[in-house]
């Protein structure tokens, strides 16, 4: 099992690589002087080199392992509840509107610390207040369902 830093360095090399490849398709010089590819080539090139150096260092050092990084037990469930409820909100908001998505998301999160009926009550209350503030007072066009909420 490699150190987590190996994967982080790999991520930066990948990002740098994609930018470098795309930048290589852009003109380096233009009619007036520097072209749109000049900065991206240099930035991504440097990013690849430095991330590669960090990768070599990460291979040599023991560093943080995946097992140390990801929490266990309740901590992991709490983290998954946060990310999962957020992702769920994003997936369904287009179809069911802000109100239902928000209640569902908040219910998942409040249920981690309170009995389900308290969680549901708080979710409905918070959603109603925020819907009123953002939609009616601030005039933000929130995504809504066919009933208008």
């Amino acid at each position, binding site marked *: 099992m490699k150190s*987590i*830093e190996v994967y*982080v*360095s790999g991520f*930066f090399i990948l*990002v*740098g690589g994609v*930018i470098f490849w*795309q930048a290589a398709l*852009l003109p380096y010089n*233009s009619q*007036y*002087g*520097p072209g*749109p590819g*000049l*900065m*991206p080539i240099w*930035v991504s090139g*440097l*990013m690849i080199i*430095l991330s590669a*150096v*960090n990768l070599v260092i990460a291979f040599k050092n023991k*560093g*943080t392992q995946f097992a140390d*990084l990801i*929490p266990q037990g*309740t*901590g*992991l469930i*709490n*983290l998954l*509840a*946060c*990310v999962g*409820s*957020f*992702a769920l*909100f*994003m997936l369904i*908001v*287009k179809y069911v509107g802000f109100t239902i998505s*928000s209640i569902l*998301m*908040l219910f998942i*999160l*409040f249920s*981690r*610390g309170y009995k389900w009926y308290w969680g549901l009550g*708080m*979710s409905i209350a*918070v959603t109603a207040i*925020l819907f009123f503030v*953002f939609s009616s007072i*601030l005039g*933000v*066009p*929130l*995504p809504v369902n066919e009933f208008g909420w």
Partner: protein
Amino acid sequence: MESLGYLLQGFETAGTWANLLLCLIGVTFGMCVGVLPGLGPTAGTALLLPLTFGLPPVSAVIMLSGIYYGAMYGGTITSVLINTPGESASLMTCMDGYPMARQGRAGSALGIAAIGSFIGGILALLVLILVGPIVAKQALKFGPPEYFALVVVGLSLLIGLMGKSLLRGLIAALFGFALALIGMDPLTGTIRFAFGMEELEDGFEFVSIAMGLFGLSEIFITAEENLNAQAQKPPKIQNMLPRREEWGPSIKAILRGSGIGMILGLVPGTNSVIPTILSYTIEKKVAKDPSRFGKGAIEGVAGPETANNAYAGAALIPLFTLGIPSSPSIAILLGAFIMHGLTPGPTLLQKNPEFVWGVIASMFIGNLILLIMNLPLANVWARITMVPFKILLPNVLIIMILGAYSINNSMFDVGAMLAFGILGYFMKKVAFPLGPVLLAFVLGKIMETSLLKSLTIFSGSFIPFFQRPISATLLVVAFAIISISLYFAYKEKGIDADTEI
């Protein structure tokens, strides 16, 4: 004298009922952000940024600035009472503030911190009034090459101060820079790295990156650590003033802290952790009995707290006069300026004096509000530290979603915030600094524009950068900073001061 006249006009602008109310909302929200776990000044300011879209620019920035310096005050309370810094600039306050609280002297620690913060903040604002117009006047002589060189110095300092994390700091800064390249090329208008996505044609939204990297990642980490943790009951606060014999050393520490904070605030690329560490180190060095430090020495609270707030005020000088942010929180203010159609830089003082002086005047008022809030109302703030995270987390999360959505009324920005939140979570776990990502994202745009303009003027040659005295000096300074940092990183003697989170 001219500045004084403008300042009086500024008080007229800031003194309207609407602006006074927004200033009060800003500092109160900032105090809450500082006191409560899970959000720092950067995320807190970013959180309210979308809500200011409907406000006039001066009112919006008055409120956002209030959050910024309010959070600086608020972080002290948790440091002293429960040994948990609300934001990283208050880290040093824990060293002596918490031992003082354990000795039943929490009131004195908070009192001297509030007084020091007030004095530091006000002195920094006076320097801003005196120095700001002079710097802005000189900066008017700056062309694109000088701006490019100045940004290089700022980024060098930011990365150079990473100490042992120099390599990671450089990678993080380059990543931020790469993010800034997405969207339209500043000279030719060519769309770059949008991968066919319409939303990316204008690049990533600053707020999505700031809230994701700083706010969301912190929420994920706090959630896994202590979602159901019982809040620690803070001690009762009595007697807010120091003992008679403590006033002398405290005032000296406050004055030294003010000087350190103001000087470092002027340097683009530093962050508020550095002046607090420096102030604490100096206080310990000049103390007659250094062994008291770490056991409840009042100078250990007075110095760093003053330095922190003096820095916060002075850091506005490079922002107002050069358009260069010193820290991630200031970068959010820069983002607010741009979103409200203002161009930070030397022309800001000339073109929008009512805006600049209105904001500066509001800071005097805000600092006074904070002093009142902190001295007689300290017990109220102490009780806020007891709000359980299991209530806070869902509320903060949904408000962040709404904040990100409100920028363009688009779920794309919310998705981007989630992606940057997950990335920030992993980066924090492996101690990759986040500050350089955000600052390089902001400075990257300025840097590319000024570099491309310069190269167009110089017909593609780099040599004229070294033929112009200001740009040449600045580039040599940047080279020296990086070289010295590399040397210390090699020796592993650098200050390991990650930027504020």
